[in-house]
């Protein structure tokens, strides 16, 4: 893993904007030493062996996560996650039913040698997708057409929709007749959420699904049908939501959302094998498939880090982590269980503490051994490695000047050289 330099394409801004990267800070240099969000003046170069090794570690981490969920559900440790009781049964059912899941992003610490370490798993509403899947690929095609890139995110997303499509409501065995609604929140005003959702919508359409996009604020609840409807009052069968479960369940419609989950505990894999789709397998109520599924509430919660460590103590891809108190740790980073974007993080070291602001943390904290991000020419990269279905499919790198990767980080592309 090397950090290299290359003059940006002359019209790089026009190019990435045309490709959809228009989030507010794509181009902003607001006076201080901030960089543009998309920074192609630097890039990272990996060797193929390195990538293959990382890929294997990511898939192992993913399967450890699934085992951890199994454990949490079997032992009903929901309180450790700060999850309210009315969600327990729906989470358990959603897991036992094997509700379909699309994607996630592991954030890893990696310095070019040894094992990558899991920092966190964004399994419910991961973003930075378009830049990883599309923008950096186009950059590579333009400037290093002869090189490769760890990136089959797009193809795998399409494949995954195709796989899931066969078991979605409305399907007749193939994906063609299912309609999936895609929602984002208007709260996010830079467009990132909307564009991420729109991009995922494209990947589903490419897989043959009919798709409709609308803001989650526009969803309607039909009292008569006891179902969610879109703006044309069409009942929704399958809903993709780029909106975290932990917000959703606290919204006024949250209880309704849980009501629409299919009942029963039959695995949809069994059902799809038998040619039956999920929604028709319930008790006659209208039921909906939610993507990501309710059980991802556990994965997107940082308490999972402590559970992983407890179940796999000493694993080379994990950092020691503990719930609610630092345990034996003397240097640690304290993260709110439900925090985002590096908010409310405190780093405690013998020589002092460093905190970031924010308003998370009332639900409790996870204490993870402090392992400073590696430094490459003064910048600290975090590897965002993408999982689609159960497969490791790609990489996106964000760099920041400080030790916490937050809203001021920049995305830099990468290549595989040799």
């Amino acid at each position, binding site marked *: 893993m090397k950090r290299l330099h290359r003059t940006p394409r002359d019209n790089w801004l026009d190019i990435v904007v045309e490709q959809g990267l228009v989030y507010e800070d794509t181009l902003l240099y607001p006076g201080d030493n901030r960089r543009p969000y998309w920074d192609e003046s630097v890039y990272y170069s990996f060797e193929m062996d390195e990538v293959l090794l990382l890929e294997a570690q990511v898939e192992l981490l993913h399967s450890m996560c699934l085992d951890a969920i199994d454990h949490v559900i079997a032992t009903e440790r929901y309180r450790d996650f700060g999850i309210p009781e009315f969600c327990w049964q729906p989470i358990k059912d959603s897991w036992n039913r094997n509700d379909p899941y699309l994607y996630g992003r592991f954030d890893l610490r990696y310095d070019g040698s040894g094992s990558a370490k899991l920092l966190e798993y964004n399994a419910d509403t991961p973003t930075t997708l378009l830049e990883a899947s599309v923008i950096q690929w186009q950059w590579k095609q333009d400037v290093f057409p002869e090189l490769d890139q760890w990136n089959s995110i797009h193809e795998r997303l399409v494949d995954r929709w195709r796989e899931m499509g066969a078991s979605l409501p409305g399907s007749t065995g193939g994906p063609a007749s299912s309609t999936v609604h895609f929602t984002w929140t208007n709260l996010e005003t830079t*467009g*990132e959420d909307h564009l991420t959702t729109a991009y995922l919508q494209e990947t589903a359409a490419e897989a043959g699904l009919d798709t409709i996009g609308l*803001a989650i604020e526009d969803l309607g609840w039909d009292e008569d049908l006891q179902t969610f409807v879109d703006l044309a009052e069409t009942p929704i069968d399958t809903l993709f939501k780029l909106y975290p479960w932990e917000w959703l369940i606290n919204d006024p419609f949250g209880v309704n959302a849980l009501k629409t989950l299919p009942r029963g505990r039959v695995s949809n894999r069994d059902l799809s094998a038998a040619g039956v789709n999920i929604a028709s397998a319930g008790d006659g109520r209208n039921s909906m498939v939610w993507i990501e599924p309710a059980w991802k509430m556990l994965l997107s919660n940082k308490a999972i880090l402590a559970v992983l460590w407890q179940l796999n103590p000493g694993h080379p891809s994990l950092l020691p982590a503990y719930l609610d108190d630092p345990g034996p740790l003397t240097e640690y980073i304290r993260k709110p269980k439900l925090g985002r974007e590096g908010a409310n993080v405190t780093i405690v070291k013998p020589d002092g503490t460093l905190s970031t602001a924010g*308003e998370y943390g009332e639900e409790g904290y996870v204490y993870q051994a402090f392992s400073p991000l590696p430094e490459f020419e003064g910048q600290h990269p975090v590897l965002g490695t993408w999982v689609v279905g159960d497969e490791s499919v790609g990489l996106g790198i964000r760099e920041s000047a400080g030790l916490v990767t937050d*809203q001021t980080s920049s995305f830099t592309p990468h290549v595989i050289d040799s």
Partner: protein
Amino acid sequence: MTNPADPSASNESAEQPSAEPQPPPRPRRGSVRTQDGDTAAAPSPAAVRRRLIAQDARDQKYAEDARRRRNRRNVLIGSGVAIGVVGVAAIVYWSAASSSTTAHCVGANDQPVSASYCDNGSHIGNFFFFGGSQYHYYYGGNVAGGRYAGGSTVAPRNGKISTDSGKTIRRGGFGGRSSSGSS
């Protein structure tokens, strides 16, 4: 990981004249539609027809473009043109971002928050309960790279109840807008 040098032979076969045995049909591409609260009332049949025609035209153009694509990874975009709905949505945000003078509204800890926070004045906080404890979000929005910066609900006050077409539909029960009006 893909090999960019690997041309996909199957794309080329689609350009054979139709006297030859037909190539296998392209997999069906699903439709892509977007609804928005300002413009998408229940569409008239004419609008539906227009939309379908436009959709067809786009699908055809997509199929055209697809034939020209060579390498495996290129199922994505031809020559740097933004794809369908991503492009349409991007234009909206890009015009909004480039025409506005930035007046950053910040929260108590100088964390960037959306300007709507300031516009609405007295929203000291929107309090929620989770796992028996209380916390609140500041309004979403204005964050670098735009990932979730918090952002959350101006708790939708009362979703409106509308009864057209004989149904009772409430909206605005998710997310942050107080209400999207009637359906």
